[in-house]
């Protein structure tokens, strides 16, 4: 009946999470890092939705709604911050954030 098994969903979700984490670690552009972070959140969303479906428990999907709503407000604030930083520094590279040092 289920063409796709829970394991497969979880593998995709874990791959997405690791890709996002890799992006956060490797990439140097704040916007790309931020996109990678959203990818990690969505990996969790996928896992939650899959568990919810296979456990026959809708609570997981409700949590997905909360995560989506919170991520939206986080993006609104986060992008505003990054835009403000860009207007000051004309850069979105993490190496240039060196004002705060010893």
């Amino acid at each position, binding site marked *: *009946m289920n063409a796709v098994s829970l394991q497969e969903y979880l593998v995709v979700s874990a791959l997405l999470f690791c890709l996002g984490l890799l992006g956060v670690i490797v990439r140097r552009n704040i916007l790309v890092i931020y996109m990678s972070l959203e990818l990690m959140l969505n990996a969790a969303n996928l896992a939650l939705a899959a568990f919810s479906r296979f456990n026959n428990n809708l609570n997981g999907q409700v949590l997905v*709604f909360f995560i989506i*709503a919170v991520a939206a407000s986080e993006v609104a604030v986060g992008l*505003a911050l990054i835009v403000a930083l860009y207007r000051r520094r004309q850069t979105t590279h993490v190496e240039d954030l060196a004002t705060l040092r010893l």
Partner: protein
Amino acid sequence: MKVADYQLSQYLPVLILGIVAVAFAAGTLLLSVLVGKRGRDSRIKDTAYECGMLPVGAGGTRLSVKFYLVAMLFILFDIEVVFLYPWAVIFRSEAGREPGVILGSMIGFMLILFIGYLYALKKGAFDWKH
């Protein structure tokens, strides 16, 4: 026919529509390459058309921050629907048990959003002129 197969088969028209749409777009483009006559291009021809004037400056225009603000407000007020939909779905069944709670919680939620809207309005976030 199993239940899942039946449910999937309901989406068959959608799949056909998708295939037709993609095929139409790709076909038209392909047709224009095959049938159409390729004109000679030169630098003058490739410049952007600016009512006959020579274009000045870079092609990409900078958009006002205003757009950003409106887009953000749109996202924030748009995402509230995420909560309205499930609420509307269960409203009928829950209203029989605890009518005050189900209505009151959504009114509280909307009230907070409304205060946010008032704030944006008073701060001139919707004012296009300035």
